């Protein structure tokens, strides 16, 4: 078993403890291998961004953390995903419970075609997190407030979530994810369907949420990665090429491929 501290030379510069420790992850779609032996220690209470050219396996690797790959018919994940000392990539761990600890926000805003209230309340409801109506109201308000959406929707909680603008929908999805009080939030290109202003709001939000959650974000925007994340991982062809402090990765990458990618020479 490799030593976690040996993955990257710069791990020590971040003071926070490791939240998710991925060890020797291999992912196969049928016979095709998509992730090649990646190990990575993701720190808590900070933002980690995944960058890399299209098809390099960022989403696949992200989905290992909440085992969403289980829902893909022919996907097979090997290796250990250790969250707070416990390997969750085993049959002994129920993915349903795992996903209440690891929330996810998708590329395209995907609110349920229900009311705004019900969108946020759905997670707490199925996990039994709120006993009474008042508790639930509090959870909904709290989540919407933290997602920066409360002021905009407090008068129309009964209206369908699909009626909001794209940026609002994405913030609703974030509110929905944080309503079940997860420890980790995974975001797969959360801003790629949004305009710059909505994107700025989400980035601001991510920065605030960093106080309480461990956030992993996949992005195609180098600027976004530089703006919101403390740590950056660069993927290439299913392999982890470089992982370190965002500043270091962007200003002084150790690998030529990283250099080429961030300067726009390929990808």
């Amino acid at each position, binding site marked *: 078993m490799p030593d976690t501290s040996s993955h990257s030379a710069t791990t020590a510069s971040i003071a926070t403890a490791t939240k998710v420790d991925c060890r020797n992850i291999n992912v196969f779609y049928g016979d095709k291998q998509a992730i090649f032996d990646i190990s990575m220690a993701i720190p808590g209470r900070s933002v980690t961004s995944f960058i890399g050219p299209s098809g390099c396996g960022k989403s696949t690797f992200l989905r290992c953390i*909440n085992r*969403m790959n289980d*829902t893909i*018919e022919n996907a097979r994940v090997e290796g250990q995903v250790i969250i707070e000392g416990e390997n969750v990539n085993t049959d002994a761990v129920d993915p*349903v*419970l*795992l*996903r*209440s600890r690891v*929330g*996810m926000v*998708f590329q*395209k805003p*995907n*609110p*349920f*075609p229900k009311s705004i209230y019900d969108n946020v309340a*759905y*997670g707490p409801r*199925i*996990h039994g997190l709120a006993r009474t109506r008042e508790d639930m109201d509090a959870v909904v308000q709290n989540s919407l407030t933290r997602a920066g959406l409360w002021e905009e929707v407090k008068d129309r909680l009964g209206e369908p979530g699909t009626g909001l603008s794209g940026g609002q929908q994405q913030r609703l*999805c974030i509110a*929905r*994810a944080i309503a*079940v009080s997860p420890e980790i939030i995974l975001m797969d290109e959360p801003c790629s369907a949004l305009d710059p202003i909505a994107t700025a709001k989400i980035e601001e939000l991510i920065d605030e949420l960093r106080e309480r959650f461990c956030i992993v974000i996949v992005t195609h925007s180098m600027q976004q990665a530089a703006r919101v994340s403390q740590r950056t991982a660069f993927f290439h062809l299913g392999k982890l090429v470089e992982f370190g402090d965002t500043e270091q990765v962007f200003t002084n990458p150790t690998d030529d491929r990283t250099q080429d990618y961030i300067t726009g020479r390929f990808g």
Partner: protein
Amino acid sequence: MTKLISSPGPSRFDDPEALSRLKKRHAAERRFRLYGQLAISFAILFLGLLIVSIGSQAVSAFSHHQVTFHLPLNEETVAPNGPGDPEAVEENISGFYQLVREDLARTFPEAGETPARTREVNALVTRLAVIPMARETSEHLDWLGETRRYRTALSDDLDLYLKGAVADEIEISLAEILRAEQIRAEDSDAPPRIRLTSADEFASLRDALARASALTADRGEAGGFSVLVQNGANLVRLLPPYDSQPLLFEPMTGTPANLAGGKPEARIILLPESARNVTDRQIAWTLALQEQGRIRSSLNWALLTNSDSTYPEIAGVLAAIVGSLFTMFVTAAIAIPIGICAALYLEEYAPKNRVTDLIEVNINNLAAVPSIVFGLLGAAVFLNFLALPRSAPLVGGLVLGLLTLPTVIIAARAALRTVPPSIRAAALGLGASKTQTVFHHVLPLAAPGILTGAIIGMARALGETAPLLLIGMVAFVAEVPGGPTDEATALPVLIYKWSTGAERAWEPNTAAAILVLLTFMVVMNAVAVFLRRRFERRW
């Protein structure tokens, strides 16, 4: 390719080659639009033809002629077991029919002359047509001893005659008849003859006769028509030869002497008596009844409130509607839950492999299996093997359920597939289990589509005839079934049966039953469209 490369750049607006290409493209578009419009016009034309032809035939079935009778309800005839037994009164059809016959004999004394003629007059009203009158009386036994007024259906053939569906006619009004005298033949057995003296010597009648001969000439027979002269409730028939001098008549009904004075009329029935189901005398009696105000046309509610009968004038679709409803109920109970479960499993849970592919192919094949095969299967499995009751909606519903199942599965799978994967991912990402995801999100979103498919499948099953014939639902059923295991028939089967009926009067009845069936289908399809509109979602 080379041309493309060597061409100097994008085509200019005045380039003749580009313009001609553009013209061709526009022509092609116009042509295609025209084809589309033609296709739609054809479809609408045929639909219109169908509705008009069925509708126009059915119209005559929705109204019918009823005869009024004043019947003295004497206890011996009506209530043989005394006034304490209403059931005996209700079942006493012969008693009431006797009252009707007596009334007819009183009205038309000439009909008593020979037994054949008595049968002729009695045929004005069908024996079973007194059933409603018996039923009504059995609920009002205090009427016993009184004379009550009843209305009952005129026999189907005479009803058709009054609707003008039996034969073409020429009707003319005649000049005043001055005298009507009876001529006794030398041989006293021969029927009496009447000589009428007309103010204009029957000039107009002779004209009309000439026209009638011309119209019927191509039929070959001389005298291929009958002529009735009517004044009030008195009718006589012109005796052949129609060109004799003077014209001689024979009495039909009423008093020949009363033909004199007033406004006489003549009607020429352009079909010989031998070629129709109604005799001249029956027509004369019917016209006399009409003259007395005893026949009127009314809405034929019986068509909807009666059940099947061997007599078209009192036959109705009620039992068949109820039978169809029970059948549809069983069909829905089988096809919808099983279909939805199968579709959910195949779409959401089943692994995608050879076995599920095979199942999918076979479901599609099953949807294409001719319905009669399902009927054979039903007869073999449900009747012979499981020994379920014959002719019952239960078995019919099971068979139609199997028939509808593939349709429902295919529609439900299509509906489930329209639910975007992002919704499933959202629910799963929140920690919902597979089953919670399906039942909280996927199924509600697919429900309108599933229901639409199910309703359209049911509408198809509603119109199925062949499988029901094979499991014996074609049995004659005059009673409204009380449950899914009673003997019953269904609307399409009734239509099939009526359409094979020998009497002319079944034709409008069949058309009317088809209209009833079409109404049900239109309503079902409208519900489907409504559901789709109401709950349709855009993503």
